[in-house]
């Protein structure tokens, strides 16, 4: 996949349809699965879509031959995450849907996504959000780098691509801010520091209606059902119990002494 200076980019962005974080979220009593009603595009994926569009636009956008494909895996409703990506400006969508996928953990999910990415083929950049807002494990981006044999540039707060197709990026590591460098092709995940995602405008919403969403099944990808879903996952949930929600304690209004009341509270709780 060697690239000449300034040539058009083929970008894949992964998106996930997740329960809205603004509402109470539930596990279903049967099988400890997440109740996926009232789902939306994961807000952390909006940063990935924005980064994909910005990279494509830096090379002249769709008119310049750049291509941004949004890929999701999930039940029927998950296509909505792809639709929103198309409204924001992605050129095409792919939805992997199969009943056997239910219960897939990060390892099984990354297996399916990596297989689909190879099946579609030819990407210069694979982009993801920093985590999904439902499972919040952040495992899938690193596992995709491993499975696809791509350089991993994850949790980036800034990304740049030069004319020689070298990515320069910044991330906040445990030891400090790291500057990273790698030639394309790469796997990138971005944080909410990386950009300000655009809203779909009226034109974008109209244009999205004409864009194509391809559906792929496991059979089309050549994946055995036994390697995905609950059966194929390397982890299993044993049990789940709802937490007592935290309740409000004492509330006081400051009339000049609240700082002292705060210290009394700490002393009563044996914190000081």
């Amino acid at each position, binding site marked *: 996949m060697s690239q000449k200076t300034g040539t058009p980019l083929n970008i894949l962005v992964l998106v996930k349809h997740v329960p809205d*974080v603004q509402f109470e979220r539930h*596990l279903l009593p049967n099988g*400890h699965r997440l109740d996926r009603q009232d789902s939306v595009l994961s807000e952390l994926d909006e940063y990935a879509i924005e980064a994909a569009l910005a990279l494509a636009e830096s090379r002249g956008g769709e008119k310049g031959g750049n291509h941004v494909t949004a890929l999701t895996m999930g039940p029927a409703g998950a296509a909505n995450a792809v639709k929103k990506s198309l409204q924001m400006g992605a050129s095409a969508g792919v939805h992997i849907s199969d009943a056997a996928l239910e219960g897939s953990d*990060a*390892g099984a999910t*990354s297996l399916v996504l990596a297989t689909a990415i190879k099946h579609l083929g030819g990407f210069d950049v694979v982009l993801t959000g920093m985590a999904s807002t439902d499972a919040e*494990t*952040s*495992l899938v981006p*690193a*596992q995709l*780098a*491993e*499975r696809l*044999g*791509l*350089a*991993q*540039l*994850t*949790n980036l707060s800034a990304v740049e691509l030069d004319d020689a197709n070298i990515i320069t*990026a910044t991330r*906040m*590591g*445990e*030891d400090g801010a*790291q*500057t*990273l*460098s*790698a030639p394309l092709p790469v796997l990138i995940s971005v*944080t*909410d520091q990386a950009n300000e995602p655009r809203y779909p405008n009226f034109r974008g919403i109209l244009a999205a209606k004409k864009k194509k969403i391809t559906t792929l099944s496991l059979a089309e990808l050549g994946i055995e059902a036994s390697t995905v879903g609950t059966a194929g996952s*390397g*982890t*299993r949930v*044993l*049990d*789940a*119990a709802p*937490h007592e*929600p*935290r309740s*409000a*304690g*004492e*509330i*006081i*209004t*400051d009339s000049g002494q*609240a*700082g002292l*009341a*705060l*210290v009394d*509270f*700490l002393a009563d*709780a044996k*914190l*000081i």
Partner: protein
Amino acid sequence: MLKILVYIHAPAQTPTKGQRELLALAASLGEAAVVLGDNADDAARAGLHGAGATAFYGAVTPEQLRGELIAPAVSLLVAAVRAAGADAVLLPNTMEGREIAARAAVRLDSGVITDAVAVDQELNVTKSVLAGSYTVRARITRGPALITLKANSVQPAEAQDSGAQVPPVQTLELGESGPAARITATAPHIASGRPELSEARFVVAGGRGVDGDFGPVEDLADALGAAVGASRAATDAGWIDHSAQVGQTGVTVSPQLYISAGISGAIQQKAGMQSAKYIVAINKDPDAPIFEIADLGIIGDLASVLPQAAAEIRRRQG
């Protein structure tokens, strides 16, 4: 006896609290050996040994670990798992810890569980999910168990001078670790002298309500020996470094005490702090959602409440 590996990303002269938690948990499960994510001199190894490490694995070429992102560390960990015949690996629940575990699970064809707060003798893992709304028990069903442990989850091992001989490092070849990004520069965090945010027992955090001045937040933090945290509104405004951000896209903390000042309590902020033992909130707005989860809520101006509290703590401490 189970063979447990502990991944130490950055060996220090004295092991950090988070590292001592990992070692304590490993020792409670079986024999604890350490995988060194970077060079560790005699003093660093003596510290880890004193905290419970019975063996050490390291890279023949540690500079490779510093020069390339994540991939070489994965090769080291996988080589150590094979050399030790490990049943489980405990890693810190940091960005690096999760990424290394994620990729090692692919190479070892095993499973990973993140955000662990407890692990029992059968290697069943307890964690909370959906921003603290459920407690889940889960296990890894094949291959060596890869588990990332949240800070402040277990009693840390005491670092003692063991007196005994510190075991040598068994060095391992990393081999071809595949394409990786080069780390061309690292700008270390500016040391604040305060406790590390993710591991701190106490946190004092400020939000948009501090209106550009973190002075009162830092002053109360220092009176308490606390770490300083912030909301995204405060870090986005540039009032404090992004590394202080607590929440969904920042640091997750579970301290004994979290004092929230001038923070409304958005869902993304709560996701990072609501497992604190005690929450105290100071906010001008009686309807601020943070009051719904505060053990003590103070409706008032942080600019007067925080300095008064700091002065009173110092007065009582004499």
